[in-house]
């Protein structure tokens, strides 16, 4: 049993699942940057009281699951999303979807994901894949971060769907409920909504640890890490920051480049000159994040490591925060044609 489905690679798993499933449902205009932007994917949060793999909890994008939901909603497409208590039920419903010709998005853990390289297999449970068929005991898998489609045995799939720990997927599957054509007018409106929401998230979210203020907060903390944690642990923390920023899925520069690409695509729908200028600002911010990563690498590889070197790191983050603040303020002031 195999659904007629085209595997496409993306930078980020959830963007990729969203894009592929929506295309399958007749939304021909959708691209990864559009899905990311309409879903208001750009974010920053540093949660100082939470640890992930013994390092700091940092995210450059919005909470898992939201991009799919928001993008579908903005385009007027109803979403089906289910979690399961029983593994049998989870497989039964999956098989029913496939039998009905419906490719299905699944949230999975990566620790037991057999086709991933060992080096990437931490207990991270918010990965997303598409199941689009079954041949004998093998499920056909489209994993957006992989160039080619792949497969998992029914046991392997069950295992990753029922991975445990933080963000446990509990067999979660999701898909757009109906095939619908989406007009360019709808895309235009969705772009506007997505940008507005992202402006609010980055500029107006309360508290000091998220949005632009979160980046500044992190900058302040980094300059204290060397004294507080000692050089070795501070290095490990910086390595974790770089992994969250650059590892599979961000498209480079902690999603800033994807967002810049989104604004360019938005310009094709809304020919407002400012969008191109603001897009360039996000490119610049992404470049600074990458310079910060190079600086961090110097520290965790032990090539540099003085307090001044940590301060340089903080300065990069502050520079990014300044640019992104201006960019989002500029976005909030755009006069959208009615």
């Amino acid at each position, binding site marked *: 049993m195999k659904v007629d489905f085209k595997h496409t690679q993306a930078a980020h798993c959830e963007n990729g699942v969203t894009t592929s499933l929506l295309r399958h449902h007749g939304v021909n205009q959708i691209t990864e940057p559009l899905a990311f932007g309409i879903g208001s994917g750009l974010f920053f949060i540093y949660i100082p009281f939470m640890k992930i793999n013994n390092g700091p909890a940092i995210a450059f994008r919005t909470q898992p699951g939201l991009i799919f939901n928001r993008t579908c909603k903005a385009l007027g497409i109803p979403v089906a999303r289910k979690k399961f208590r029983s593994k049998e039920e989870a497989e039964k419903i999956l098989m029913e979807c496939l039998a009905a010709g419906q490719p299905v998005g699944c949230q999975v853990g990566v620790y037991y994901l057999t086709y991933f390289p060992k080096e990437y297999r931490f207990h991270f449970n918010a990965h997303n894949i598409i199941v689009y068929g079954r041949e004998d005991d093998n499920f056909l898998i489209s994993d957006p971060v992989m160039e080619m489609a792949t497969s998992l045995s029914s046991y392997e799939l069950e295992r990753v769907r029922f991975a445990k720990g933080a963000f446990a997927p509990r067999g979660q599957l999701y898909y757009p409920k109906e095939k619908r054509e989406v007009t360019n007018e709808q895309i235009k409106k969705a772009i506007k909504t997505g940008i507005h929401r992202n402006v609010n998230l980055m500029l107006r979210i309360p508290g000091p640890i998220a949005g632009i203020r979160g980046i500044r907060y992190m900058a302040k903390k980094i300059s204290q890490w060397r004294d507080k944690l000692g050089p070795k642990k501070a290095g490990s923390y910086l390595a974790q920051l770089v992994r969250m920023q650059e590892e599979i899925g961000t498209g*480079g520069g902690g999603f800033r480049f994807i967002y810049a690409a989104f604004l360019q695509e938005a310009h094709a729908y809304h020919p407002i000159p400012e969008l191109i200028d603001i897009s360039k600002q996000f490119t610049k911010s992404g470049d600074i994040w990458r310079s910060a990563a190079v600086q961090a690498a110097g520290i965790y*590889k032990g090539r540099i490591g003085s307090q001044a070197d940590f301060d340089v790191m903080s300065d990069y983050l502050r520079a990014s925060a300044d640019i992104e603040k201006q960019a989002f303020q500029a976005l909030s002031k755009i006069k959208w044609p009615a």
Partner: protein
Amino acid sequence: MKRDELPQDLGALGKITGEICYVVDESGKYTTQLSNGWEVKSSALDVAWKDVEQRIQDAHNKVANKEASPILFFMELRVMDIPIVAAYTGFWKWQVKKHLKFDVFQKLSPSKLAKYAELFEVSVEELKTMKVDES
């Protein structure tokens, strides 16, 4: 990032698949390009695994000094923490914490030991002796 600046430093993932990156072409337009990896981030991943190895080594020493039970060793070996072990085994977190103690471990029932052995994918004998053949 400009297209010609995209790093191509072969990393662990690069051997299996290229990663999509968003880059700017000569005319300033965004496009995607595959990257085989970037030395800056593969060394970040190295740091993470060295930390894991250190934790495994520390755990091993602790068990040898009877300061902890082999469950600590296997927990680190499988890159888990107490909440993850609790979630997979069905024990409460406080129970797992207790089982991390050397003395408590010696008195664990066979059924409890079997649960841990299953999670860590070793035999009960290997669980007790920490002798595992990891290739």
